[in-house]
């Protein structure tokens, strides 16, 4: 089979990208860039930013492949398939460019402009950032315009983008973080995954749905959405309508939750650990977990890190749940085919999780960032790092403790009872910064104890963040990871069709809604009550 579609669009997309990169580099778009406040993406002449590098690199690849498609007759084989994906990849990327460098900052400008009228910043409250808008753009593209044939193979490749993002994410964890999160995630996921699977099966039996329907729905509602249903459907002999009902229900829930979770999380003032833990447990679809985490914290990656650990734990439960359902189904259905336990575990084990572990181990060796205080960040409280000066010597920006913040902390210092914490706060007030790594840890412990007011805790958090300097390689990793997720999520949006979502209905929707709500609210309560740590 020949996969390459002869289309002029790959070439056109390449030319558009290169032209855009050139216009940015030449400064022609400076007024627009300043208006949108996105000059950080442009970089400097000696080190160009992503707004120049990405369009040039991607554009040149698209031009070469676009020309190749016309010049050479494709031959059947892997090369033909891989090259046939380039058009679709560029199609996704150009949408991602528009969303990240255009719509997201534009919404930011509009959000600020409308704040006096509306009373709130719509950009921030509604999470209208590049991740949410990217997924929406994908959903609109497939449902309103449909994906052109030449782009279909590339759109399918977005799965690889998400998996690569998760694998690379492994670099950003420290042993301590992983140990803290793994314990918490195993407990929470075990309770909520096993609980939701059991609840669907129990409700299904009471509402007289077939075992095959109960099996495929419980996997989707319990483990990781569509992926789990896809893994479980053949094992429980699900009928086609049952699959359609289940996937429709899960997609509907996933998309709704992706928008609702970040709004609720922000309104409740959750920290990245709390939100990551909640999203990783309560949202059904794994991609929507990543989407919600990035929507909650678009400028950083801390929430995504926590959410992904929960997600990975959930993924590791997938083979176990499928095996459970296989055994459960065989016990209830005469004539059901027995499956080999070993082959279920082996075939359903997600291999990319091994990639994540390998990257984590490599990261832990110090290959990407020496220093171990925080992954990819160094403790640095030097004046050079904390205070930026203008060429004339005047202070341009300072991360030292401001006088009004010092007054606030002084007024609340009496609330502390622990002598070490008192000493750390006194030292902060005297030196206007954390003086050592140990000192900083004490400030973090004050935050975690929630003894001081929210405002005072915010000041401490900014003091904590101020003394860490990102490692250059890790910063690059973060940027690359964000792009892999953006690419993956836009492409994934392009695979979520309304015709699939419209199939949601009947008993599966009722059962799914009850279990989904119990899971989302239950995990919220647990997280809110028991998860306080900022990892």
């Amino acid at each position, binding site marked *: 089979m020949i996969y390459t579609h002869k289309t002029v669009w790959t070439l056109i997309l390449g030319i558009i990208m290169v032209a855009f990169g050139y216009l940015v580099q030449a400064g022609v778009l400076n007024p627009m860039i300043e208006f949108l406040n996105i000059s950080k993406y442009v970089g400097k002449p000696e080190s160009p930013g992503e707004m120049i590098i990405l369009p040039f690199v991607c554009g040149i690849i698209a031009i070469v492949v676009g020309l190749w498609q016309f010049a050479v007759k494709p031959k059947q084989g892997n090369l033909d398939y891989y090259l046939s994906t380039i058009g679709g990849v560029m199609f996704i990327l150009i949408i991602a460019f528009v969303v990240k460098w255009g719509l997201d900052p534009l919404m930011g400008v509009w959000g600020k402009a409308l704040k006096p009228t509306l009373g709130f910043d719509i950009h921030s409250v509604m999470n209208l950032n590049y991740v949410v808008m990217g997924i929406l753009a994908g959903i609109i593209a497939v449902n309103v315009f449909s994906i052109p044939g030449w782009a279909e193979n590339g759109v399918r490749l977005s*799965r690889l983008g998400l*998996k690569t993002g998760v694998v690379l994410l492994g670099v950003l964890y420290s042993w301590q973080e992983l140990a803290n999160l793994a314990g918490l995630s195993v407990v929470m996921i075990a309770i909520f995954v096993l609980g939701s699977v059991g609840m669907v099966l129990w409700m299904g039996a009471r509402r007289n749905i077939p075992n095959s329907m109960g099996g495929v729905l419980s996997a989707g509602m319990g483990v990781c959405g569509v992926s789990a249903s896809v893994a479980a459907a*053949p094992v429980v002999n699900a009928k086609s309508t049952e699959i359609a009902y289940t996937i429709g229900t*899960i997609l509907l829930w996933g998309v709704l939750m992706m928008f609702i979770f970040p709004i609720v999380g922000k309104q409740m003032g959750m920290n990245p650990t709390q939100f990551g833990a909640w999203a990783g447990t309560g949202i059904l679809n794994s991609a929507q977990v990543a989407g919600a985490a990035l929507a909650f914290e678009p400028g950083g990656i801390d929430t995504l890190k926590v959410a992904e650990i929960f997600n990975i734990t959930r993924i590791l439960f*997938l083979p176990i749940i499928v095996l459970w359902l296989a055994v459960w189904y065989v016990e209830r259905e005469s004539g059901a085919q027995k499956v080999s336990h070993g082959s279920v575990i082996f*075939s359903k084990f997600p*291999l990319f999780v091994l990639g994540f572990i390998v990257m984590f181990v490599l990261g832990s060796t110090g290959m990407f960032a020496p220093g171990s205080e925080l992954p990819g960040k160094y403790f640095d409280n030097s004046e050079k790092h904390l205070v930026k000066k203008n060429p004339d010597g005047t202070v341009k920006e300072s991360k030292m403790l401001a006088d009004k913040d010092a007054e606030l902390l002084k007024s609340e210092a009496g609330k502390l009872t622990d002598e070490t914490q008192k000493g750390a706060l006194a030292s902060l007030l005297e030196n206007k910064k954390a003086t050592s790594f140990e000192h900083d840890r004490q400030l973090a412990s004050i935050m975690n104890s929630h003894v001081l007011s929210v405002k005072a805790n915010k000041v401490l958090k900014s003091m904590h963040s101020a003394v860490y300097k990102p490692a250059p390689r890790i910063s690059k990793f973060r940027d690359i990871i964000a792009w892999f997720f953006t690419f993956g999520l836009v492409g994934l949006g392009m695979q979520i069709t309304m*015709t699939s979502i419209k199939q949601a209905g009947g008993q599966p929707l009722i059962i799914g809604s009850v279990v989904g709500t119990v899971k989302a609210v239950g995990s919220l309560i647990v997280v809110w009550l028991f998860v306080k740590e900022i990892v």
Partner: protein
Amino acid sequence: MAKPKHILLASHNTEGARAAEKLAYSFCGPGTTLHHLIVVPDLWKGMQGDDWLNNASTRDTFGRYVESQLEEEVRTHLKRMLSEIKKRRIRYRYEMVQGKPTECLIRRAARGPTDLIVLGSPRPKGQTGLRSRMLDEKLFRSLRVPVVIAPYPHD
């Protein structure tokens, strides 16, 4: 009314479609050909939409499983239709396509020859089944031949 020579029946084994089949048989006379269109809705294309965790083998297994399920459903449908057609001695042709049901019907009707189209009614609220329908405004605007809609069998 003279018996039509070419009847196009769109059915996919639901209650409503079975009522349409019976109605189509009643229109058939000597020399009539019943053209049967079976549409596998394109909604199946989006059924792996959010699956990015599984290995390729799991996705392939699922894809093959769904295909075999749909094939089995069509086979059962055809088996039942063929036995009825044989009994009634009707000249019969069937065609299976994948896509949006409305668009597939419009395309098939335009290709002809078609004198009459017989369709089933949408199922009443509360009845289970896929939400993939042929009856919409676009269909009626596009068709150039008479359409008969069989009432839903409320019994």
